[in-house]
């Protein structure tokens, strides 16, 4: 896997991008938490696809967050990324917030996006299933919200360090403020920027992937996306929470094969 800094939007942003694997071209847009060290999902995807995984401004050392303010800015930034990476009709995969951006891109330019995978995607709001407020959680409260197997998730998030360790907390809070600062522009205070009015435009072959134990954006949201995107298929994966790709990477990889 290669990590490089690329200029995007004619130099208006610089984006850390991870590239690796062989196979069909895939653009992967991460969720609000960004990418993890040795990201298990990324590793799995790179075993079968040529994967481009850019980090949005505000994540790690990617720069240019100031000019991204609303949904349209982010969706167009997705196309700027495709342009900068030289990607033509990649398989577009987005997790959570990344799914929200990917769905918006597919609605905005249906002829440019023909294969789409939304993994535990944000973007819709169902009053009967309010999504918990990730912006008001303390670090130690997150694993239970994000994972089916909380012990596994805690270890993955902290790389084995105690969550109450001051050094871990310091780094986490600063990185978290930067990451969620960016994410808040799409997700705060309610992760809905009107996507439901635009999903009818999506023409891509669409796959929806959800963990059956997603406590953040429960699988009923997968069904809501399925109702609104023509021909979309929903795959619910057992023993997985919101970070379904991290808990069950092989099952996600297997599901993705349905896109062809």
């Amino acid at each position, binding site marked *: 896997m290669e990590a490089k800094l690329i200029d995007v939007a004619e130099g208006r942003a610089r984006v850390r991008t991870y590239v690796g694997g062989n196979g069909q071209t895939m653009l992967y847009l991460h969720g609000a938490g960004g990418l993890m060290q040795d990201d298990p999902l990324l590793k799995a995807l790179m075993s079968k696809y040529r994967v481009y995984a850019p980090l949005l401004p505000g994540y790690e050392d990617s720069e240019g*967050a100031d000019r991204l*303010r609303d949904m349209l800015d982010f969706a167009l930034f997705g196309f700027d990324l495709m342009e900068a990476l030289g990607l033509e009709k990649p398989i577009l995969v987005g997790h959570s917030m990344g799914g929200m951006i990917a769905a918006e891109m597919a609605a905005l330019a249906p002829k440019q996006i023909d294969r789409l995978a939304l993994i535990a995607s944000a973007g819709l709001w169902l009053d009967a299933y309010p999504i918990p407020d990730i*912006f*008001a*959680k*303390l*670090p*130690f*409260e997150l694993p239970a919200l994000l994972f089916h197997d909380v012990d596994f998730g805690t270890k993955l998030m902290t790389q084995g360090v105690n*969550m*109450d360790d*001051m050094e871990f*907390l*310091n780094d986490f*809070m*600063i990185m*978290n*403020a*930067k*990451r*969620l*600062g*960016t*994410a*808040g*522009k799409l997700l*705060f*205070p*309610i992760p809905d920027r009107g996507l439901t009015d635009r999903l009818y435009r999506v023409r891509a072959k669409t796959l929806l992937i959800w963990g059956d134990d997603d406590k953040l954006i429960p699988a009923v949201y997968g069904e809501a996306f399925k109702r609104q995107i023509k021909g979309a298929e929903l795959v619910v994966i057992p023993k997985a929470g919101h970070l379904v790709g991290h808990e069950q990477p092989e099952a996600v990889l297997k599901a993705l094969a349905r896109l062809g």
Partner: protein
Amino acid sequence: MKFTWFNLMPWPYLPDDFRQKHHSVWVDIPSTLYDPERGHDVYNTYLDQLEYAEALGFDGIGVNEHHANAYGLMPSPNIMAATLSRRTKRAALVVLGNSIALYNPPLRVAEEFAMLDVLSAGRLVAGFPVGTSMDTNYCYGTVPALTREKYAEAHELIMRAWAADEPFAFNGRYTKLRYVNCWPKPIQKPHPPIFIPGGGSIETYDFCIENDYTYSYLSFTGYLRAKKLMDGYWERVDKAGVDDSPYRAGFAQTICVGETDAEAEKLYAEHVSYFYNRCLHVYPGFADAPGYRTIKTLQAQVLSQLTRQSLENLGSLSWKDLTEGGHVIAGSPATVRDRMKELIKGLRVGNIFCLIHIGNMPDAKTRHSTKLFAEQVMPHLRNEWPEHASDDRFWIHPVQKQAAAKGRVPAEAV
């Protein structure tokens, strides 16, 4: 020196086990803990106290804005200031302030503040806080990372609206108005004195210095802990090459005055404890929405409160902790005088926001403490800055005429 008697307007009936049973005093506190009929008495008692403070000679009476907060019952401080404008004649109405990023359009603030200035014949002090994360982000939904940009734009709109003689078009990112036309205009020209509450960011220091706004540090942790922050402000003033008038700064201090030190503890300890141990029970997850603060400010934060342990082990601050630590200045008039002098000189402030009603303090005790402060402390502190006695740039300029509130409107005017 300018002394403003401030009332946060806390709800005085939080249960004893509030911290054990409830997540936070702010944002998601159940509104079943509030009783509107008792609330009627609470509001009117607090307003009476503010009027009493004017009668005792305080220079200003102060109100502020909070949302879904059991220690601050004023979602609209302007409503409170409006009632006070009719029943007072001399004191500055210190509204500290309106969270200008929250109003849509922010022109509303220019209009309402102008109304207050006209109603009070030029007695308004206009506060423009960015607002806490609890109010601005969690309660009022402003996107954290966009809060400061939105604030800066709102400030520009308000100041231009007050200054302009003709309607103008305002093409902001967050507010677009084809016709900005502020009716009425404030009495005070070019505008009422402006106070900016800050929490130590250099950007806010500079914003105040550049505009001749008063920098106000509103903290509940007292003057000893404020020294470093205020030193940082004065260094910045020095660097900017402007004069160092103490009226460029203000500080909020909790104060309890008794006949003796022992009486102060006997009368006020339980109410101070109610405030510091019950009212300030804010869930740390609401303290700081990611993106609200700059990264530099974050690096200085206290992390230990973000651990599971700290949520489970609720410590409690004793009277001794609070008075020795300077959170609270308490004691006989002589004791309070001495410590107030330390505060005034130590922080170099010309404005004190006196927090004398505290937590669930009953009316009689509040008046007792207020009266002792006004009669036996304040007169001795009046002339702490003789070389700046003529500096009136940072305070109100009322007009002489103060219309009396009449019993009823004449029939022919209706």
